[in-house]
Structures are given as C-alpha cells and as structure tokens.
C-alpha cells in the first residue's frame, strides 16, 4: 500500500508530502505520525507541503489534526512551504489552522523547531 514516509532526524520527524493526498493516505499518515512520536519520543514534527498543489477541507483538517495530536503527545508541528494557491484555498474554505505553526522553507522550519527544543527544553526550564 502507498504510504507517506516519516523520517527521523534526531528529535524531529520529517514528513514530505509529494503525492496527491487522498483521504486514506491522510488517515494512514495520522496513524504513522502519532505512533512514531510515541515510539521515538520526538519533540517536533516538520511537514513539508511544498509539492502539494491541490488541497481540500479534509486535507486542511488533517493538518490541523496532526498538529493537535502531536501537541497532545508533546511535539510541536511546523507546516512549511505552503504554495500561495493552497494558502488562498484554505483561507477561502475558512480554515486558518490556528494551532499550527508555519514557516517558509524546511530550513526556516528546522530553525523554529530546533530553537524551540533548545530554548524550550533547557533554557526556559532552568529560568523557571
């Protein structure tokens, strides 16, 4: 069965969506991500959707769901590389993905997550 690979990069999960998402694939991805986070103890999830050109409300909700589930499991989600057309479509659909953090590129997303995991886990905690 077709699957979207979930890669491990240190404490992060890297997911690159390069095929047209259909509903089954999206549900499979939700399962995989939640399982990997609990297996590997990841603190961040980076979803690269720069090759995703078509998006519907289901995919939009899937992204919000993954972010929500990851947060429950203690990992932060960053969605990177959204195409202008996809962003416009999501806004027109009324989905602003409020709980999801975004970045322009994988690089910027990594910076965001690593910055978070470093300052968030050590510095801020020691300050507190």
């Amino acid at each position: 069965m077709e699957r979207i690979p979930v890669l491990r990069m240190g404490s992060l999960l890297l997911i690159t969506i390069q095929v047209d998402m259909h509903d089954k694939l999206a549900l499979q991805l939700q399962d995989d991500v939640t399982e990997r986070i609990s297996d590997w103890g990841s603190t961040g999830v980076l979803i690269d959707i720069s090759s995703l050109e078509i998006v519907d409300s289901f995919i939009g909700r899937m992204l919000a769901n993954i972010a929500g589930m990851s947060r429950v499991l203690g990992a932060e989600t960053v969605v990177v590389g959204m195409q202008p057309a996809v962003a416009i479509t999501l806004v027109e659909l009324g989905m602003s993905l409020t709980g999801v953090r975004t970045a322009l590129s994988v690089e910027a997303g990594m910076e965001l997550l690593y910055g978070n995991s470093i300052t968030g886990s050590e510095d801020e905690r020691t300050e507190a």
Partner: protein
Amino acid sequence: MNDLAEIISQNEDRLRTEWIRTMSSSVERADLISKAEMNEQCGSILKEIVEGVKTSGPENLSGAGWNGTRELLSSISASRARQGFSPTDVATFVLSLKQPLFVLIRDKMGKSPDQLFETVWSSTRLLDSLALITTEAYTATREELIMRQQQELLELSTPVVKLWDGILALPIIGTLDSARTQVVMESLLQAVVATNSRYAIIDITGVPTVDTLVAQHLLKTITAARLMGAECIISGVRPQIAQTIVHLGINLEDVITKAKLSDAFGLALQRSGRAVVKTAAAAAANPLSGLFGKREE
C-alpha cells in the same frame, strides 16, 4: 429598391454638402475632427451605402453587400469614441443624413405619393439601423476602454516592494473590494515565495475607509500569508480609521498594527535580528548632528 441607390449616387456631392451642413449645427466638432476628414468620411459612407443598397437591398442589413458599410461605420465610431465624442454626437452623425436625403427624395418623387412614402420609409429604417450599428460600435469601444483601464488600475495598484532582505511592503491605495483583494493576496503571496520573505508590511495609508468587509479582506490576506510562514504587519492606520475599527467592533487583536510604515519596518527589522545604527562617518560629516547630539545631552 434601386431607386434609392440611384438617387444617392446621382446626387452624392449635393447630399454630402447638405449632410455636413445639417450636422455642423449639432455635431460637428471642429476641435476634434478636421473639415477635410469629415468630408472624406461622409463621402466614403455614402459610397458604401450605395454599394449596399445595390447589392443587398435596403432591408437586409446583415447581407454581404453591407459589410463595407458596417466596417466603415464601426471604425469611424470607434475612433470617435477614442477622440472623446459623446454618444449623442455619434448617433446624430448618421441620423442627420435623414433630412437632406428626404429632401432629395421629395424632389425626385414628389409626384407619386405612394412611391415617395415607400422610399422614405425604407430609407428611414435603413438609417436607423445604421445609427444603431454606430452606437453599438461606440459602446463596445468605450467598454473595451473601461475594461482595459480597470485592468491597468488593478495592476498598477498592487506593487509589492522589497524593503530589506526578507521584508516586503505592500502599499495599498484605494478601496479594497473582493476582486482587488484577490489580486493583492496573490501578488503578495507570490512575492513572499519569490523573495523568501518572513515579514510583510501591508500599508493602508491610501485606503480611504476601513469597514467590516475591508477588514475581513485584510484578515484573509494575513491568514493566507501566515499559512505560508510569513508574518504580516499592518501599518498606516490613521486616527479616524483606528476609531472606526473600534466602533465597528472589528477584531484585529491577533494582528500587529502600527501607525506608520517606518514603525512597522523598525519592528520587522528588530524581529529579524537587525538594528539600524548611525555610522561615525555620517556623524562627522554633518556638523549639525553634533549640535543635536549636544542638545540631547
């Protein structure tokens, strides 16, 4: 009905002079069109009408014989629309041919009322249809003009400028409606991708009023930019607009707003870890700066 063609072609010169004379009282605009040009246009129209009546008859205006007339009238009224003639001017241009033509017909056929009526009626219908063609062409040209201007306006009014590495500015001028929001949103998002910018400043100094609809459009743009990973700052909020926003109960709490574009730019610089500093050379080159420095102390 070749009588009509004959009458026109035999008396072309007289008809043309009379026509221009009738026209000159109402339509002729010496400031927009020269006498010689007018004379030439009228002459060629008359020739085409004769041709049309001869080949296809005065009733069947869609016939092949009238192609020349139709094209000629369309091009004339199109050029007049561009020159700034009013619709009345253009319609009267053809309709003022009626009087001289009827006078001519009466002179020729005054003795047989039936034939006279017949000819006058068919030429009235003919001229009316020709006037309609003229008006239609006039309107079409004007519409085309308006469409083109609208397009130009849309393109002109949405420049995205790069202020600094990673910082874009989008000065919006004029009211934001749905169509413009779409263009603004698209060009901003494209620019964000193209320049890989993290900060976008939307300057609304040139937006005359902000109502709930405009605010909603702005929020949409900001949300779309956020989805792509760029942060938007709204600047150029005038005091009255700030009041309107609060009175209308528009929720802009999740959006960073600043009064001036410079404030927003400063914030964007600060957030991207940059600062603007005065160089020592500039301070030395400008003796006044020392003066101000002392005053500050």
